[in-house]
């Protein structure tokens, strides 16, 4: 039996045993971990082969499911996406095993959780391996269904019940669009096997339609504006390792889907690239703005995921434009940047969510304005979190910078070539990324600063303390990965070599990748110098300050004598300039209570920023549909005579139609 089957079987089996043995908190977690470890062990070799040598491993199920031959293929692209699925899946599960001990075991409660956690992993693996429309759709639906139950772990809170509803509605409607996409595509050739699709037979208009469907369907999963609405609901509701897994890994399946569908549709067209860029810019800017305006840490992180998806889309869009205009440099830099950012985001966003989990358990809240000064109580978490914050802002020498740098390079190169049609979207992506980067910096300075620096704003924050190794070890590993990928980018960029060759037309030269490597080498030197300088200056500083008096004094408060933690700058006040400037988009809800009396009493100012799309888009839509359908309800009024009249009328109308020759 091929290793690919084990790859599917082991995590599922682990989860299943966990379900059966679910009464015990420890054992169920262990079973799940065992399954995932097995998956990692099995996956290692094929993934390595695929990424190192570009050879893809195949396996075919001996029997046909529902009339479709099941073929599993692990090509470099799948392998690239599989990497985080298995590795991070295991890391997050390790964290989760400690995180979950917090919650008392109910009847099979933990078992159920771990079962669906592993089911999610299995679903994602299957999605990546499937090469048949129907099989893909089934595994896609499984993958969408599993998190529903994970989000419902705290099902006694109304919030998570609502969140799970929003999540599954979004997921399923997206899935329906995808089903349509595959079946329409299949109607072109014969059968739903990816190999039998014949996009070249399609008219351009139909191909555009199909890509539109795919983009919409996969976009919902990826969380592209304006179909992102499930993320800010689901991520805060789920347990932290699940949020990490969903936001770090699962939403990337949407990106995978988009790439795969472009491949299935026979290569990109300029319009698609432009669409991706536009979607990327819009998602990125709007999402980071909403992130800035949030006060709940996980909700903020969810929005920032949408923003990063935006950056990824920008990269891929730039790449697609490059491909469609036969500009290998633009294409390769863009795609490489996009793909690398997928990996990077998985790393630092995962880490940030894990950190959020620690904070939630230690401080019993994620309200930014109730936290503060945690750097003293949670040194490790603080270190990892701040590192992650720097990385997510794309600052050197961390991994975030590498991917963004590549995307920038692609866009800049696009400026120097003569083609105007390509230039303006590339320019847009350039400016867009710059703005996104700046706002992201603002956002994460706010998060890091308010949570970890200053002095504690609540009692919980004072009493917080670092937890078990099982919880901060994964974070440290991820932190190391962020730093490593950033410092040794020239080597890690080779990861995307073969995935790129899957996406690019066969004729394209890989030379630009070598160019990128050399650039990254230069960057490596500079960042190396920078680190040395930091050490030197630090040393210098220490030498200077030897035997000089170093005084500790209260923060200088402009002469105010009794400073109080409540007087610190809060998250909302930090974000105020931005939220004020973009009020038109954000539409914050403000409750202010300012007394005009001579001796003012308590003065309060609170602002919340719910999602504008939900508020002005979906909610009215749903209400409207409900009202509309409500009209129909008079049919069932309970008078039997009229019921009989329905029968007669129906018959009469039909007979009339027959007589009139309409049917």
């Amino acid at each position: 039996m091929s290793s690919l089957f084990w790859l599917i079987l082991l995590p599922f089996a682990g989860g299943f045993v966990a379900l059966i043995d679910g009464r015990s908190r420890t054992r169920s977690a262990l079973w799940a971990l065992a399954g995932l470890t097995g998956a990692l062990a099995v996956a290692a070799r094929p993934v390595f082969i695929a990424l190192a040598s570009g050879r893809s491993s195949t396996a075919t199920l001996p029997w046909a499911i529902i009339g479709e031959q099941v073929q599993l293929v692990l090509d470099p692209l799948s392998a690239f996406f599989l990497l985080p699925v298995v590795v991070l899946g295991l890391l997050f599960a390790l964290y989760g095993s400690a995180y979950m001990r917090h919650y008392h075991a109910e009847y099979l409660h933990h078992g159920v959780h771990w079962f669906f956690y592993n089911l999610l992993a299995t679903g994602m693996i299957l999605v990546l391996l499937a090469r048949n429309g129907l099989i893909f759709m089934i595994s896609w639906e499984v993958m969408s269904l599993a998190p529903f139950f994970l989000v419902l772990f705290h099902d006694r809170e109304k919030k998570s019940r609502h969140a799970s509803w929003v999540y599954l509605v979004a997921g399923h409607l997206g899935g329906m669009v995808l089903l349509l996409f595959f079946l329409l595509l299949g109607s072109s050739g014969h059968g739903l096997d990816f190999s039998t699709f014949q996009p070249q037979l399609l008219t351009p208009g139909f191909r555009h339609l199909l890509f539109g469907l795919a983009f919409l369907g996969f976009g919902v999963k990826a969380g592209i504006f304006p179909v992102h609405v499930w993320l800010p609901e689901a991520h805060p509701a789920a347990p932290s390792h699940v949020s990490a897994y969903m936001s770090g890994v699962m939403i990337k399946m949407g990106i995978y889907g988009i790439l795969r569908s472009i491949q299935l549709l026979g290569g990109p067209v300029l319009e698609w690239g432009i669409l991706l860029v536009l979607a990327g810019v819009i998602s990125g800017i709007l999402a980071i703005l909403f992130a800035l305006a949030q006060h709940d840490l996980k909700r903020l992180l969810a929005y920032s995921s949408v923003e990063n998806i935006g950056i990824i889309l920008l990269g891929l869009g730039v790449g697609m434009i490059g491909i469609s205009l036969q500009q290998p440099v633009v294409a390769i830099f863009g795609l490489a940047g996009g793909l690398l950012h997928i990996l990077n985001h998985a790393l630092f966003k995962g880490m940030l969510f894990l950190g959020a989990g620690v904070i939630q358990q230690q401080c019993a809240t994620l309200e930014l304005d109730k936290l503060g000064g945690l750097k003293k109580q949670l040194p490790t978490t603080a270190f990892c979190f701040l590192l992650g914050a720097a990385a997510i802002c794309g600052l050197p020498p961390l991994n975030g910078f590498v991917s963004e740098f590549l995307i920038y390079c692609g866009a800049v190169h696009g400026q120097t070539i003569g083609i105007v049609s390509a230039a303006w979207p590339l320019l847009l992506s350039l400016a867009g990324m710059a703005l996104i980067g700046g706002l992201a910096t603002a956002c994460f300075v706010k998060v890091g600063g308010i949570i970890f620096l200053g002095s504690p704003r609540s009692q919980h924050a004072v009493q917080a303390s670092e937890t078990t190794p099982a919880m901060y070890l994964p974070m440290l590993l991820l932190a190391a990965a962020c730093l490593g990928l950033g410092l040794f980018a020239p080597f890690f960029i080779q990861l995307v070599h073969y995935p790129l060759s899957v996406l690019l037309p066969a004729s394209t030269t890989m030379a630009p990748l070598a160019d990128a490597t050399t650039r990254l080498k230069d960057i490596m030197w500079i960042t190396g110098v920078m680190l040395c300088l930091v050490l030197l200056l630090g040393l210098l500083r220490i030498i200077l300050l030897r035997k000089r008096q170093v005084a500790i004094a209260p923060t200088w408060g402009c002469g105010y004598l009794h400073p109080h933690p409540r007087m610190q700058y809060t998250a909302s006040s930090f974000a105020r300039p931005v939220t004020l400037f973009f009020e038109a988009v954000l539409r914050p809800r403000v409750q202010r209570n300012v007394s005009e009396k001579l001796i003012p009493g308590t003065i309060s100012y609170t602002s919340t920023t719910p999602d504008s799309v939900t508020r002005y888009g979906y909610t009215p839509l749903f209400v409207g549909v409900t009202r509309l359908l409500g009209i129909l309800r008079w049919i069932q009024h309970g008078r039997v005579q009229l019921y009989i009249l329905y029968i007669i009328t129906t018959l009469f109308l039909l007979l009339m139609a027959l007589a009139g020759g309409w049917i």
Partner: protein
Amino acid sequence: MSFIALILSLALAPLLLSIINRSKAVIAGRRGAPLLQPYFNLTRLLQKGVVYSDVSSGLVQLSPVVNLAVLCCCVVLVPLGPIPAILHFSGDFILLAYLMGMGRFITMLGALDTGSSFEGMGASREAFFAALAEPAFFLTMAGLARITGAQSLNDILQTINSEHWLHATPSLLLIAVAFFLVFLAENARIPIDDPTTHLELTMIHEVMILDHSGPDLAMIEYGVALKIWLLAAIFAALFVPPGTNVLWLPLFLLLMVAIGMLVAMVESSMARLRLIRVPQLLISAGVFAGLALFLEFVQ
């Protein structure tokens, strides 16, 4: 050669600062501080001890160090007029921008570390304005890349010549204006910010470093000088003839001085903008750059 340029930059950076202050004083009709005043300040600060806030958790110490280290790295990337940069590769200005971003990031965290609302306020404004300045900077760079066809800061600045000025005068002018605005914003000069006062609640950069003292403050001040020097060098290089002929160096340095005077003139001729108006300024900078690119496309 390039290393000499490096030393030169590191050495002369504070001088530019003092030129600005001196010429401001002259314009105001005062004699002003001696040209070497910044060096005196730095040496004095380096000899002092330090005072920390009791809430601070180490970042306050870390931030000046990292900030300075980052800015020193930036110097490596910027050519000094005719003298090429030590290290240059396509897209290095992206690295430059992000290194500065790193510096800003750590400075802001350092500011928040003291837990004082003044620093917090400064950080918040810095973050916002920087976010608006970024696109402008990248657009100007893209514009230059478009015009010159080069992709690294060094090549761009060394290839740009009278031809370009002849063919693309309007767009280059627009870009120059845009870049000058970015220059002012990045260095926290009037009309965006006022470097001279500390205690106003309307400050941005200065208020972030309220709680720094001694060597830390020295590093910060030096960092400020370096930053202004770097950006001025880029700005000046737009106007010097191309090529790597060292004889142009004096001219280039003169240009730097001129820029310092220009800044001084701006600062003494106009007052700080109200904070609400600052974003408009930065956005208009971006618009200028975008306009320049548009002009380039339509050609």
